[in-house]
Every structure is written in C-alpha cells, then in structure tokens.
C-alpha cells in the first residue's frame, strides 16, 4: 500500500512502512547519515539525518529520517536552513572529538565523515575541547582499531553482533568516555574475533583498517635474493576495479594482471587453479568419508573466518571440517614444494603473496600446520584494498591498461573455480565433480545449482537442496555469514538438519563481500545489492569459460601426474591438508 507524502513541496506516493530516509530516496534525495546501515544498524544515534516533518497538520518538528516512518499526508523538508544548521553543528561536534589526521589517514578520500564535512563547510575548530587519547589496538593479526578516529556510529558493532551474530565488540564506558572495545577492555587479538573484517567495511571513517602488509611485499620485490610471486583469488578481479572508479560488478582481470606484473612480481598466477585443486581433494575426501564411515556432514574449509568461528564457537564440529587447506594455502604449499622443485628454486628464496578479498587470510597465513615446505606456505596475504593501494602508489594508470594474461604454469582455473567467490559456489563446483564420480561418466553439460545460490537481496538463513545423482540422494546445505552458520550448525546439532555436505562462508554473500574488499559508502551499501553485483562477475566468468568443471582443468591433473600421484594421496595429504584447533571461548 502506498502513502502520499510531500517532500520539499512535491508530491510522492511511497510504500507504507518506509522510513523518511527511504522515501526521500524515492525523490532522489540522499539524506546524509553516519550510523545508519539498513537492517543491521537502525539506531538513530548519529542524529545527522535530521529532517523536518509535519504530520496531521501539526507544526513541523525535527526527526531522524533513518528511523522515522512515513505517514499519510506527511510533509517532509530535507533542506531547510534549520536542518542544515543542525547538521553542521552535529558535524562540528563529531569533528571536535575526532583525530583529524586526514592527510595520512587510510580512509582519506573514501571517508564518509570527510565528504560530509566538506559538503557542509564545517569549521573543524568550532567546538574545540578535550579529546580522549586512545592507544591503537594492533593486537590482531588482521584488524587494527584506532579509537582516536572512531565516531561511535556503532556500525562495526552492528556488523559484528547483528549481522555476523558474534558480538566481540561493543560500547564500553558511557557518556563522553564511551568507546568501542571488547569485553573487559581486552584487546581484539585476545578475544574470539574471527577476523572477518566486516567491521572494517562497515566503518565510515578510519577507525578500523586491515594490518597493512604492502611494505613487506615491496621490500621482497626489491630484495634480489627473493623470487616474488603473487596469486589472486577469484573475487579480487571482480572488485579491484572499484578502487579505480569502476562501478561495482566490473571485471578487471586483465588490467589487474598487467598492473601486478608492472609492480615487479616474478609471476602473477590465478588462484582459481587451486580452487579446482581444492574441489578434487575435497570431493574425494567427501566420498571417502561417505564410503568409510567418516565424520559427516563434511564442512568446507576454504574460509578462514569460518574455520576460526567453528573452532571458537562450535569446537564439537572441528572433525567435520574438511582437512583440505584453503585455495590460498594450497597455492602457497604448491609454490614452495612442486613449483620450487620444478624450477629448481630453494623454497626459502620464494616469497609468496596472495591477493585476497579477506582479512581473515592474514590470520590464516600464521596458522600452525601451514608450512608444507618447512617455510610458511604463504608469506603475506594482501587484501583487494591493499593491492589497489600498491597499484595506485606505483603510479600505474590502471584504467588505461590494456590488460594481459596470468603467467604460466598457473594461469588457468575453470568456471567452477571462479564461482568459489560467491556463496554456494564451492558447493556447486564440488557437485559438478562429485556427480561425475558417482555416475562414473561425465555429465552432458555442467551441473548448475540455482537452489543453493544466493537469492538476490537476502542473506538470512541457510539454503538446502537434495540432488539425485544416479541412485544417490546428495543432501547439501549452504550458509554464508556466521549468524546463518550458527543457525545451520544448531540445526545439525539438534538433528533438524540431516545433510552430507555443508558449505559455509564467513562473510554474508561469500568472498565477494569479504572484509578486505574495496570500501563502499553506506549510501551505496544501503541502496545497491553489492553482493549480487559483485557475484555476477564470477557467474559470468563461469558461463563464459570453456571449461566449467574442475575435473576438466588439465593443469590440475598435471599436478597429480607430476607430483601428488592421486587425489588424497599421502603426498597430497602432506602438502594440501591441515588440522584444526578446538579453541573454545
């Protein structure tokens, strides 16, 4: 049902139940917000979205547009001198308690506060007064918190608690002393944080950011004793363009590869290859578990945030996790064993970098049992944002690049590998292979499983499906986001859900929405289905790929032929598999 409202004097019919903020968007008016994130942080805390409304002929009053519902006949004014003065005062107050190191801030130019302060021409010293000084919390291997820049919008808290269902951060103290922190003022590195980084992408300012490892990469590149290689995860190519002004959903694989080569890497490889390798190992592991009475349901292990979540919150399920390393770690292990051997390089001289959409991967590289060669499989994991910064800093005109191809021998992954970056993708890829094994012959055309793909617009709950392959019913479940994972695991625990194979990705929507992906302001996050747009790049890659099944990637079988022997062989276990820790809380 529609209600009729007047926005700045013009009539509009908007949906009942909409907020004033949403109604204004119908009228193409973007009301500024700092705290609002649709569905997860509708708390009316920053008070920036003040507008004047009049209902039922009553006098105009100031309300917060983000949480105030429209009503029939409502008159809304979004741009009055009173409103603008109030917003300006608000920004001046926020700025009076914000460390204004904008010149060197990681969020300079992508900062939502900075943009608004410019728009409203604020005087940054208008309300000069004391500012509490906070120590920077750099205890986590992935996420750094600088409360001196925090504006207490609580978007990070909502991302952690409401969206991810974790809640390791919250508001401590009160009044002017309020700050975001962990329970009992513990450091982030000492709590059950899974390093998903959703707090970082939720932050409108520079109060949260990933540990920047780009200097380590640059140092390695300039070290003559090192051979430096990089491989890029499926989702990086789908989003790196956003760092250079491309619209979300623009595939920039060739430019990305060229830019990385220009940075001086000795080889630029495609992680889609080890995604395929993961499928071969994981599917065989699943079949072996089914045939030999192993622990079921088996759960995927590609997402290091999910792994840590399982270890902390559901340690009883660590036996269910596939022992396969993640594609990133498999790649590193491959580089320092197979590749080193093949190329005659001492693994200690290989510096291997992975480019990933993920902050949890920074934690993963330091996990135990991830050093197949005796040296860490991966030396440094850099996020899409860090890759973007390196390219920018090197003065490379990304948008002008023609693009080039990945280096051999790891230059190719199948369409199945590409879709790893979207929730349901690993499952779909695995089923394409598993079906072939079970049936004992190739399928006529690659299996597609729309049932377990994300339904656009929604990330609530989990998805299940049963696929009849030959005589066998293959029962699967897919969840993305730890809140949904929790529900799924509880249903497995209670017996409500009976499946053989489960895919879980830590971030809602999968890696395309990872915590290491380019910043998008709330105004975009609230109005655009970013996850769908970004995932579309991967699904297009899949469709346009000649080879859409992992088992058809010849490069993978070459690895078995030359090095591992057979899937799940002893050698494969040594190099490509790992173990887990029951961490608890």
């Amino acid at each position, binding site marked *: 049902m529609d209600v009729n409202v007047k926005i700045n004097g013009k009539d509009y019919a908007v949906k009942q139940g909409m907020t004033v903020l949403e109604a204004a968007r119908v009228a193409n008016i973007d009301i500024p917000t700092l705290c609002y994130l649709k569905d997860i942080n509708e708390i*009316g805390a920053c008070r920036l979205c003040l507008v004047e409304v009049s209902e039922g002929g009553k006098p105009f009053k100031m309300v917060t547009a983000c949480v105030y519902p429209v009503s029939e006949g409502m008159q809304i004014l979004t741009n009055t001198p009173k409103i603008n003065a109030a917003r300006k005062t608000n920004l001046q107050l926020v700025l009076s308690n914000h460390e204004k190191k904008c010149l060197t801030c990681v969020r300079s130019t992508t900062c939502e506060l900075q943009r608004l302060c410019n728009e409203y021409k604020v005087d940054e010293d208008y309300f000069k*007064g004391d500012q509490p000084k906070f120590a920077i919390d750099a205890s986590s291997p992935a996420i750094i918190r600088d409360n001196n820049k925090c504006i*207490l919008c609580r978007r990070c808290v909502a991302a952690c608690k409401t969206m991810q269902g974790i809640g390791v951060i*919250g508001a401590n103290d*009160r*009044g*002017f002393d309020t700050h975001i922190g962990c329970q009992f003022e513990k450091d982030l590195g000492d709590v059950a944080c899974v390093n998903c980084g959703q707090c970082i992408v939720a932050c409108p300012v520079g109060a949260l950011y990933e540990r920047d490892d780009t200097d380590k990469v640059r140092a390695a590149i300039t070290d003559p004793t090192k051979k430096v290689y990089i491989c890029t995860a499926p989702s990086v190519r789908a989003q790196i363009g956003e760092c250079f002004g491309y619209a979300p959903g623009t595939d920039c694989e060739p430019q990305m590869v060229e830019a990385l080569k220009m940075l001086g890497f000795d080889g630029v490889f495609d992680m889609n290859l080890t995604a395929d390798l993961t499928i071969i190992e994981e599917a065989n592991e699943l079949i072996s578990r089914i045939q030999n009475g192993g622990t079921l349901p088996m759960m995927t292990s590609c997402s290091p945030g999910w792994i840590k979540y399982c270890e902390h919150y559901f340690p009883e399920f660590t036996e269910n996790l596939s022992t396969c390393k993640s594609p990133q770690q498999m790649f590193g292990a491959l580089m320092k064993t197979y590749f080193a051997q093949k190329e005659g390089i001492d693994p200690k001289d290989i510096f291997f970098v992975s480019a990933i959409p993920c902050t949890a991967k920074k934690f993963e590289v330091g996990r135990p049992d991830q050093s197949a060669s005796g040296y860490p499989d991966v030396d440094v994991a850099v996020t899409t944002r860090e890759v973007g910064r390196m390219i920018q800093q090197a003065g490379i005109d990304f948008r002008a690049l023609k693009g080039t191809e990945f280096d051999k021998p790891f230059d190719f992954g199948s369409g199945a590998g590409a879709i790893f970056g979207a929730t349901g993708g690993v499952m779909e890829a695995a089923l394409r292979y598993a079906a072939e094994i079970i049936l004992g012959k190739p399928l006529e055309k690659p299996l597609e499983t729309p049932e377990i793909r994300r339904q656009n617009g929604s990330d609530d709950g989990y998805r299940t499906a049963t696929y009849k392959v030959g005589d066998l019913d293959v029962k699967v479940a897919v969840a993305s986001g730890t809140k949904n994972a929790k529900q799924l695991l509880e249903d497995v625990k209670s017996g409500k859900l009976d499946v053989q194979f489960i895919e879980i990705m830590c971030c809602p929507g999968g890696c395309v929405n990872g915590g290491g992906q380019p910043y998008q302001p709330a105004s975009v996050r609230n109005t655009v289905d970013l996850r769908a747009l970004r995932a579309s790049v991967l699904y297009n890659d899949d469709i346009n790929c000649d080879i859409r099944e992992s088992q058809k990637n010849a490069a993978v079988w070459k690895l078995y032929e030359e090095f591992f022997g057979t899937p799940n062989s002893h050698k494969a276990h040594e190099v490509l598999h790992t173990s887990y820790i029951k961490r608890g809380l």
Partner: protein
Amino acid sequence: MKTISELYAAKEVENSKTYPVLVTVGIATCGLAAGAGPVIDKLKELASGNADVCVKQVGCIGICQHEPICEVYVNGERFTYVKMNAEKAARVYEQHILGGRPVEEFMLTEKGEPVQNLMGTTFMKLQKRVAMRNCGIIDPESIDEYIGRDGYRALAKVLTEMTPDGVIQQVLDSGLRGRGGGGFPTGLKWRFACSNRGQVKKYVCCNADEGDPGAFMDRSVLEGDPHSVIEAMAIAAYAIGSDEGYIYVRAEYPTAIKRLTIAIEQAHRYGLLGENIFGTGFNFDVKLRFGAGAFVCGEETALMTSIEGNRGEPRPRPPFPAVKGLFARPTILNNVETYANIAQIILQGADWYQSLQCPGCAAGTKVFALTGKITNTGLVEIPMGTTLRTIIEDIGGGVPNGKKFKAAQTGGPSGGCIPASLIDTPIDYDNLAKIGSIIGSGGLIVMDEDTCMVDMARFFLDFTVDESCGKCAPCRIGTHRLLEILDRIIAGNGTLEDLDKLEELATYVKSASLCGLGQTAPNPVISTLVRFRDEYVAHVVDKKCPAGVCKNLLRYRILEDKCKGCTACARKCPVGAISGTVKNPHKIDTSKCIKCGVCMATCKFGAIVKE
C-alpha cells in the same frame, strides 16, 4: 485467598486488632540512616512482655530531616517524637508510655512552641496524601496491614465489577498524568496498549529507577507501601490484557528491594499474584529487575533495553513501547508514584481525584522532594496547583538564616529554574512548561541569594554529562562541550562569544538528542541564561561572581581601616599570601592567594572581605 469475601474478612480481622498503646518507628532509608534501628530495638526490648504496647515499623512520614521519628498512639491521641535515639526512646517509654506524661522536649516545635504531633504542623496541614497515604502509617512488610487499609480492594473491584475498557476510562477520566517526568496522561498510555487483549503477549512495567538527584518519593513509596505498586500493576495488566510485569528498581535501593521482595512473596501466598486471581481467571505475576546505577535507565526505552539484558541505552521512538516495547511486545511503563495513585482512583472515583487539585490545574496531588536552602526538607504531597510560595514559605518554613529566596530548580537536572519573581506560579505541568521548567519527577531545590546561577547550571550539567549513555552524538559530545564552556566562564576565561555558543549549542542538543536525557540536559543552562543572563555577563565581562561562589573570580581583600595588625590571618594563611607587620594593616598578595577563605574566617575584626 480465592474470593473477594476472603479479602473483606481479612480486612475485618486486621482492623479488629487494637492495642492500648501503639508505637511506630519510621524505618525507611532516611530513618535507618539517622539511627532508627537502635530506637526500634530499644522500644521492642522495653515493650517485650508488655501486651498493652505494640511497637511496629512503618515507612517514611516525609519530614526526613527530623528522623528518627517515633510516634505514640494512646487514648485516641497521637504524639510525634523527633530526632530520637535509644536513650530518648527509653525515656519516652518510661515517662510517656508507662507514666502517661508526654515528653515535650522531644517534640517538634513551631514558632518556639512544642507541637504534639506532626499533623498539627503547617508542614503537614497543607498536604493531601494519596500516593503516600500509607507511608509512615502501615508496616510495609505486612500485607495484612495493607489489606486493613483497603489494600487489594481496587484490584478486586476491577476484576469483578469493571471491564478492562472501563478501568482505562476511569483512569483517563481521573486526569492522572505520569508522575515520573513526562507527564503523559496515564489512561491514554494504557489505551494505546489495549488492543488485541489476550492475543498478544504484553508487559506492564514499573519504573522504580528513580535517578534525579534529590528526588526520593518513589523510594519512600516502595519502602513504605510496596503493595500499592503491585496492586496497581495488576490493575494495569487487567486493563491492557497482560499477565506479566517487571519492576525495574535501582540496586542502590536495597531496603526498597527487600520490601518489594517480601511484598511479592506475600501477594503470591495470598493468591493476589499468580494464576486465577480471585477466581476470575485473571493471571498476573511480577518480577524484579535491578538497575545498575545508570540515570538514563529511567528513560523508558533504555529501561526496557536494560531489562532485556543489554547495555541500558535508549531506542528511537516510534515505535513507542505501547506498540513495540519490552522484548518487542506492547508494553506500558509507569513510575512508582503514578501507580501509587491508581488504587485510590479506582476506589474513590475519577471525580474524587479531579477534586483534589487547585482549580484550573492538572488533576490530583504531586509529591515533591523539598531540598536545598529551606527550613523543612523532606517529602511533601500537595494538591496540583499549589503555588511555589506556599511550598517554600509555608510548608517549607522559608529560607533559613534570614537569607533571601533567589530561585527554585524543579524537575532535577532536566528541569529549569524559577526565579523569585515567579514565586506565585501555581505548580502544575502546563504552568511550569510556560515558564521554561518542568515538574519532572518532583525534585524541588531551593536556592538563596548565596547561590551562583552559573555554578548551579554547571552542577546540574555535570550530572547529566556524567550520566549520558554515549549513544547519540549531540548528548555525548554536545553536553560535554557545554560543560567545557561553563567551566571556562566559571574560571574567568569566558568570552561573550562563549555565551552565544552556549546558547546555540544548548538549543541544538535539546532539539537533536535521541532521548529525554539529552533533550532536557541543557534546560538548566537555557533557563539560567534566560533568567539570570546578567550573572553570566558579570562572569564574562566583569570577571566577577556576584554570589561570591566561583573561586577563580573571587578576590580577598583586607580593609586597611579595620585591620588591627594582629597577624592572625598571616599566620593561618596556608600559602603565605598575607604580609604585614604587627599593628600595621596587612595585605594579601592575590597572585599567591588560593581563595581558601581561612583568613576571613580567622579575622576577629571583620577586616577581610571577599569581592
């Protein structure tokens, strides 16, 4: 207790109990703090074995400054003894209870004459007690005494004679408005939550998180008459169709918690809480939740968030609690004093309640906590519309030490100040709103001519700054910046530009904050700026504090013609700021002076002045 006749029978039994001598001792927190414990112990010890004498505990009668208070009822007469201790109690027992000779020297005095009992004082005569009708009269730990005073009769009446809508209508007709601060019509609040009775889970909550500094009427009701709140909550539950209630009481009220706990247990035992009350099929239960000392948890949405187990922070409204409150269910929340009126409104009718106030004013009575520069401090329940003059000069006994009345702050830290020129304002919601203040929860702080209004505004703001939850930016940062500006002014570093900024920011914080705390926090600043702007200007332009309070703006000076050169001040000065030789006028080095005032207190000749 399964039927109403059982309730009436219990009342008969209770009222048939008589004693030749009844001695009561006030053991609310105010009494206990003043030493009522040893008094009641002594009396009980002396009266043990004496079947003619009954010693019992009661709540607070209201005149807290005279605690411990002990009253003796004998031969149809009532005697009030104040400022008691165990020794005095022994003497009252010997001389009065056994000997029949009242002890006049322990009685209250008015105009130099002893007053036999409290009811004869102006302090009490002008009061009308509805919410506090049982306080200081009944033993709060005895449900029988409550029943003896018509307790639970209102609940019985609504359950058997009235429809839920009829109850709401009666509360609406009574004109009762919320006594906790907002002043929202109680009946209307109930009506908003009354749809879909029996189909959706609803909650009835009681706000007992009394947080205004200087306000303690809710504590007094909880400590003196806890059943009145429980009964009213049950009535409210019946009216809106709820079966579960929460009392959110601050943990700093241990005595109130203890008595509520006892009262709930007793009500359960009597079948007045629980299932199928009076056999009518109506179920209702009450749980206690303790507030951990956050002022903001007196705000309704913050209170509910806290009950839910989260950090006590307000939520935006709408949705209002009547639609989506506790655990996202329709909820009504009233404060203790509001509830304390309900049973009487049911029993005596809306018209009766509407007859209590002064003509043309909001309905009923209101309890005020009278403190500050006033002779009689304590709790007073007066008809709405009583003038400030009556409260201060008659009930309060005026400003002590011959000082002049300067202003009164109503509504606690969220209220505003009323200058002496408006002393004839009849106190009710609308009249106070018109002059820039609020009734709030009923705090009333009296200030005399020695009060600096800038300092006073700073004092209240300091409280709200400390109590801001930190959720919304205007309150979290804005009030803090306001305080910084006031600090500058008080320190003598303020500018005229600061005054403008103060006004601008105060107005902004008021209009933009998320909840009532922030929306009212600037009130003391705004109202003093309006009423006493000259004092602000004196601080800023002349660098002087007219009331002589703000230390940084004070100068101590020795009047040469009065100084005898006795050297006493120079010897006492802790920082050696005074110089001079014997029998010659001394001098104060203002650059060294820390303005402690020791010299002025030391001088026997009145030769030192502060200016």
